[in-house]
């Protein structure tokens, strides 16, 4: 058996079913073997997009996604996607070829360990043929343990050597420690004391709470202590069925939510990092004490602060323990859960600011509400980055099995690949991606990949034909905002040319017609929605124009 064959068998034994990437002579033999083993290979048009798909897979499933690239130039294409995945704490393994160990002047040579370090990715190198199992095992072990991307770099000549060991591969799961368990009893007592001393608590749930399956426990605790339920952006719309759910805590909070947060005297963070975005540097909760539950040994909150009480615990176990301790103390209060608050929340999504629309453009706000209503709740939602996120990250409110937002590296263009990977991870279940025109243009070639694999992803392009963030910033500074205006072709027509479905839309009605068609028969489709430049998102109105809205 050749080393590349053993490497492929080891990936298969790690449970890998899909690999995203682009073939080259540094990875093609390994890919050929994977195909023989029944692993699905998704050939993409850009290695970075392939890694972005593996990132989406990891975010949706919390299990390692797998990407691949050939040596040298294939690897350098991975840069932005690697950093994004690292910031997203996505477990993934990127199998990369490496130039032959015997040829230092090979034209595709690259110091891949330094590249990985610069991209905030872990690095495992296959140094010898004998180490094939160890290298794969270590890569998956590190990806899962540290929840980060790992580059497995395999020199082309080492891959071609003989591998003589016939023993079965021992997967990384055999090395991993058990999950974090129960909280420390003394700290739990302290947390219960803080919560029982509060009158208006808010529970902020993040991805960690979702992954731990803490939903029911959170709602039970919220009912007992009279808490509002808010999410980090990463857990957007999770537990939205609760009538005291206020949406996202952070930059994408509604004005109503922000006003309620100001009244809060206690924040209970569950599986959420409570970072600078979630608490707006703490300014969202000027009067609160913090109780923080997370599986990590410690999480520093925004501004280098520590919670008043930190509990290292599995989210579900910790919330259940806190709730039962408060029940034992017969603690129960109405807190925020009053009729008055419910009334305030009923209209929280209303944004009455009026803007004069340019002819042939739509207001993106009613479009978001229409999309949320029309796209079935069992379908996933993916929201992009850039200015358009200021609409989608606030206005979508239905709970969905998967909701992924961008923003990990503050870059545009990364959500389309991530959405594609997440769609595959969900067994090719339909999903909706809402993103801006510059983002979609960046990886437009991957729409053809969507078509090739018949991915049922509906892309709605919030197209104002400009770099939105830059346009509004230049406008605020009274500079030439026109520099940020870049026209696009009719992306609906482009989608059709690539073999999918597409529409150019200029009104909510146009969008409704196109979406109804997609819902009837989901498949790869792109709606190019021309939106007005005059409609400014709520976060931008606050940040750039200083408005209290």
């Amino acid at each position, binding site marked *: 058996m050749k080393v590349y064959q053993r490497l492929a068998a080891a990936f298969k034994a790690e449970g890998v079913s899909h690999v995203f990437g682009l073939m080259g002579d540094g990875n093609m033999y390994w890919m050929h073997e994977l195909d023989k083993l029944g692993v699905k290979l998704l050939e993409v048009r850009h290695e970075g997009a392939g890694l972005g798909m593996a990132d989406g897979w990891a975010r949706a499933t919390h299990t390692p996604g797998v990407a691949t690239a050939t040596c040298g130039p294939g690897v350098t294409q991975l840069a932005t996607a690697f950093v994004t995945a690292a910031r997203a704490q996505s477990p993934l393994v990127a199998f990369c070829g490496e130039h032959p160990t015997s040829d230092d002047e090979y034209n595709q040579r690259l110091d891949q360990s330094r590249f990985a370090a610069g991209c905030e990715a872990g690095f495992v190198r296959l140094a010898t043929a004998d180490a094939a199992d160890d290298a794969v095992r270590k890569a998956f072990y590190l990806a899962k343990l540290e929840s980060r991307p790992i580059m497995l770099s395999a020199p082309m000549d080492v891959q071609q050597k003989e591998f003589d060991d016939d023993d079965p591969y021992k997967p990384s799961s055999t090395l991993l420690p058990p999950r974090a368990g129960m909280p420390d009893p003394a700290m739990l007592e302290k947390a219960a004391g803080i919560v029982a001393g509060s009158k208006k608590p808010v529970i902020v749930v993040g991805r960690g709470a979702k992954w731990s399956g803490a939903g029911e426990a959170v709602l039970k605790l919220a009912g007992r202590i009279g808490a509002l339920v808010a999410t980090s952006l990463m857990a957007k719309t999770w537990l939205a069925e609760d009538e005291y759910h206020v949406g996202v805590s952070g930059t994408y909070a509604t004005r109503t939510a922000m006003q309620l947060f100001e009244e809060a005297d206690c924040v209970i963070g569950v599986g959420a990092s409570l970072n600078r975005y979630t608490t707006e540097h703490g300014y969202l909760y000027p009067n609160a004490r913090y109780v923080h539950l997370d599986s990590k040994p410690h999480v520093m909150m*925004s501004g280098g602060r520590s919670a008043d009480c930190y509990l290292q615990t599995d989210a579900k176990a910790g919330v259940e323990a806190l709730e039962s301790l408060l029940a034992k103390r017969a603690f129960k209060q109405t807190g925020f859960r009053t009729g008055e608050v419910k009334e305030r929340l009923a209209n929280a999504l209303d944004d009455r600011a009026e803007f004069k629309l340019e002819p042939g453009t739509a207001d993106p706000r009613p479009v978001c509400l229409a999309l949320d209503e029309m796209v079935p709740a069992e379908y996933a939602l993916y929201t992009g980055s850039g200015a358009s996120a200021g609409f989608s990250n606030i206005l979508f409110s239905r709970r969905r099995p998967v909701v992924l937002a961008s923003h990990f590296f503050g870059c545009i263009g990364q959500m389309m690949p991530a959405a594609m990977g997440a769609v595959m991870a969900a067994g090719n279940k339909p999903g909706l991606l809402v993103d801006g025109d510059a983002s979609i243009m960046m990886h437009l070639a991957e729409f053809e990949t969507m078509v090739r694999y018949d991915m049922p992803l509906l892309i709605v392009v919030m197209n104002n034909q400009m770099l939105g963030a830059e346009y509004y910033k230049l406008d605020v500074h009274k500079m030439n905002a026109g520099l940020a205006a870049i026209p696009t072709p009719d992306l609906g027509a482009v989608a059709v040319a690539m073999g999918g479905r597409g529409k150019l839309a200029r009104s909510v009605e146009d969008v409704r017609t196109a979406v109804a068609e997609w819902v009837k028969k989901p498949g790869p489709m792109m709606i190019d929605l021309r939106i007005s430049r005059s409609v400014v998102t709520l976060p931008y109105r606050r940040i750039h124009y200083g408005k*209290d809205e």
Partner: protein
Amino acid sequence: MIEVNERIDVPGTPRAVWDLLADPRAVVECVQGAALGDAHDDGSFDASLTVKFGPAKVTFRARVALELDAAAMAGHVSSRGKDNQGGTRFRATMTFRVAPHEDAPGSTVAIEARVEIAGRLATVVEGGASLVVKRMTADFSKRLAARCAQPSAA
């Protein structure tokens, strides 16, 4: 750096307007969200100011020093402080000068101010901060004019 250059027309004689601006308590009453704290031996005093950046409110605590030149009817205010979470610092200076209105009865107050905000809040408010300061200046002008129109200031 946020810069403000304003000329405010107010009713009242220059002397009456000057008397008002030379009294920190009266000035603070013209600034929405401001409150005066303890006075110190060196003539400076503590003050607090709550500012709305979007829907979020931030309270700053500051030490304020006031230098007055009664003959020239001019003053210089300098203040520095930080917000109540400690993540944001600010430094502000303001000079003002009262003069008779050139074309009409009443007075004109020329104000030049510079405000620097540094730290965590700076990233949250970005360009909006200067608009907030400009709105606060406009509000101050309105309140000052209203105050000067009161009989005691005439």
